[in-house]
């Protein structure tokens, strides 16, 4: 028994000795025979690991058929680094690198300068080499030249939805992070921690066993799915660029939103910038005027004033007033756009003919407290859109006792609102009286495989459905009777709209008489709308009214959306009209 045990022990020990000998032999080959090669490889891995290969989640736009298209992704390639301590022939190295990386390589003099820094072992000299170029350079195995994998942020759409998607940069720190747009807002989801692959298994086992079983990052890191539809976004951007160029405006913007859910299918502000080439971009363009800037929108505020008064019960659609063309309030003169009197007219004409005197009359009927209450409910809070740096509305005139502040606010002057607040408030007319939460991201696709839908269902009631419907009827009448002299009417589709022309402030407490802000809002089908569209152009030249600058763009978008989504008719005139 004892002898048998001893023999077994000896057998086991001899096996262990053999294994140990094999390991020693292997170590000899690794450290001595192939030592130089492994030293170089370790040098590269040390350099690469220290730098960290950039990784980040994707941002998708979603086509109408549900297909995901990357709006922000990663591009892969190689970077070139040198080790001045082992670089033997800088001129030859420069020539070899220049063949494959001429655009991003340091200048010849700068390259030679860095090769003299013999106290350093890693200096990056060229970036963003293609796969083929990187492998070709690596195959040359130039001493002191390392070719390493590199990832960088790439935006397949270039300028597509640039202000919404945002950018990634170093900012004030030394880590690449989202700085604007969705890149910043969802940075926690999109960013990736770089320690995942190199962590010490045993250290994790003893110190952080929980993370080995359930990885907390899986519940946080992922890709994001937006509500932006790429073809509509492209169309909107194209249209805004045309308007801006035609009228030499300072800027133009637009939002297309589903008024029942708050899902934004397109959001654009011209001028755009190419997200893949940020070197010469004016930094002011990185912001998003549609959520950060405030504007006096002009007459597209009238439907809101009208709905507030209808909801409060101080007027009905049949109520009449005497329009005198001009009135004086607190020593200030308020006039219709043409200064002409209309006599005794019903409420609908205030919307159809866009009468400032009528809007002021409604404001007076509402009373200051009620007016302030409605407008504070509509514009007093941020919308909560998932974009950074959302601006506040400027409603200072509504906290003063002067009636003129309320009268001018009734037709969109004297108070300044962000475009996103404006479309949310107007959307409440479109959807029967509820303010929705505008949003750009519908879901987060976690790396664990779970798709987490975001909850944007919170709605705030502001108007009665009856008041909203009555205003919608007035806005529909405007399109059918007034817009382009009635030619804009679509026989089989009801469209509700309102134009707005506001005077721009001159910076000295007054307004320019020849500089305007044009806006246009509309939704369709009027009584069960699929889309609400808000457009504006700031300071267009040699043109006075929004009906001249934006109606063609608006109607073009309406027809495009009807065709693109095959929206069925909602009314039944079968007819033939001039195109």
């Amino acid at each position, binding site marked *: 028994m004892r002898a048998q045990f001893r023999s077994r022990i000896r057998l086991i020990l001899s096996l262990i000795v053999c294994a140990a000998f094999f390991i020693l032999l292997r170590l000899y080959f690794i450290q001595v025979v192939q030592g130089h090669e492994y030293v170089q490889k370790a040098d590269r891995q040390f350099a690469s690991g220290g730098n960290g290969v950039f990784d980040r989640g994707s941002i998708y736009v979603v086509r109408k058929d549900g297909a995901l298209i990357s709006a922000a992704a990663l591009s892969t390639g190689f970077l070139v680094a040198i080790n001045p301590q082992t670089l033997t022939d800088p001129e030859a190295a420069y020539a070899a690198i220049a063949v494959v990386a001429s655009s991003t390589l340091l200048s010849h003099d700068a390259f030679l300068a860095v090769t003299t820094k013999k106290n350093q072992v890693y200096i990056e000299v060229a970036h963003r080499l293609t796969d083929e170029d990187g492998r070709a350079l690596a195959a040359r195995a130039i001493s002191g030249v390392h070719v390493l994998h590199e990832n960088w942020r790439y935006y397949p759409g270039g300028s597509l939805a640039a202000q919404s998607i945002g950018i990634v940069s170093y900012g004030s720190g030394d880590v690449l992070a989202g700085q604007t747009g969705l890149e910043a807002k969802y940075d926690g989801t999109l960013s990736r921690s770089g320690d995942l692959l190199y962590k010490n298994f045993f250290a994790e086992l003893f110190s952080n066993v929980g993370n080995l079983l359930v990885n907390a990052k899986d519940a946080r890191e992922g890709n994001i799915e937006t509500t932006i539809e790429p*073809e509509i976004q492209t169309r909107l951007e194209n249209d805004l660029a045309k308007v801006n160029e035609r009228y030499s405006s300072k800027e133009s913007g637009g939002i297309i939103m589903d008024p029942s859910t708050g899902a934004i299918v397109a959001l654009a502000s011209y001028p755009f910038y190419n997200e893949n080439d940020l070197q010469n971009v004016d930094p002011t363009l990185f912001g998003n005027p549609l959520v950060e800037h405030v504007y006096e929108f002009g007459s597209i505020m009238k439907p809101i004033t009208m709905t507030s008064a209808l909801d409060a019960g101080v007027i009905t659609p049949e109520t009449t007033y005497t329009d005198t063309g001009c009135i004086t309030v607190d020593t200030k003169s308020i006039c219709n756009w043409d200064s002409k009197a209309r006599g005794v007219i019903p409420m609908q004409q205030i919307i159809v003919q866009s009468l400032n005197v009528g809007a002021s009359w409604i404001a007076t009927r509402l009373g200051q407290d009620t007016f302030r209450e409605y407008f504070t409910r509509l514009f007093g809070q941020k919308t909560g859109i998932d974009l950074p740096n959302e601006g506040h509305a400027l409603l200072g005139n509504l906290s003063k006792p002067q009636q003129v502040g309320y009268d001018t606010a009734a037709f969109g002057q004297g108070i300044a609102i962000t475009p996103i607040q404006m479309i949310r408030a107007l959307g409440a007319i479109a959807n029967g009286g509820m303010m929705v939460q505008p949003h750009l991201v519908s879901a987060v696709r976690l790396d664990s495989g779970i798709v987490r839908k975001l909850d944007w269902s919170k709605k705030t009631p502001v108007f009665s459905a009856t008041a909203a419907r009555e205003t919608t009827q007035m806005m529909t009448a405007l399109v059918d009777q007034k817009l382009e002299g009635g030619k804009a009417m679509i026989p*089989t589709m009801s469209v509700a709209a309102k134009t707005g022309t506001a005077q721009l402030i001159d910076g000295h407490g007054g307004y320019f008489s020849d500089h305007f802000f044009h806006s246009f809002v509309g939704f369709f089908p009027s009584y069960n709308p699929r889309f609400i569209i808000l457009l504006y152009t700031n300071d267009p030249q040699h043109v006075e009214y929004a009906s001249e600058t934006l109606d063609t763009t608006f109607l073009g978008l309406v027809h495009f959306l009807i065709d693109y989504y095959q929206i069925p008719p909602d009314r039944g005139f079968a007819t033939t009209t001039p195109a």
Partner: protein
Amino acid sequence: MRNKRFNFSFSLLPFCSGIVAILLVSYIGLIAVVMSYAALTVEFSQSVRNDESKVATLESEYLASVARTANTNYATAGYAKPLTKLFVRVQSATALR
């Protein structure tokens, strides 16, 4: 009755040495496995990223073609606006408003 006594003795030193050797080899083996796993994971991860990058290039071409289509001036391409538009009567009376 003979007193049966378990007469088994062994030296502690070889036993412990054996255990230590086994643990050492296991440890080195596990480190090798973990490092291989890490290296393969990096390789696969980069491979996935490379494929995603190629897809992004294709998506870029798609979006460029969408932009090109949206920007096309059909009049200069030889197309003319229709003289009239025929609007189809809505079929369901309940949809009328």
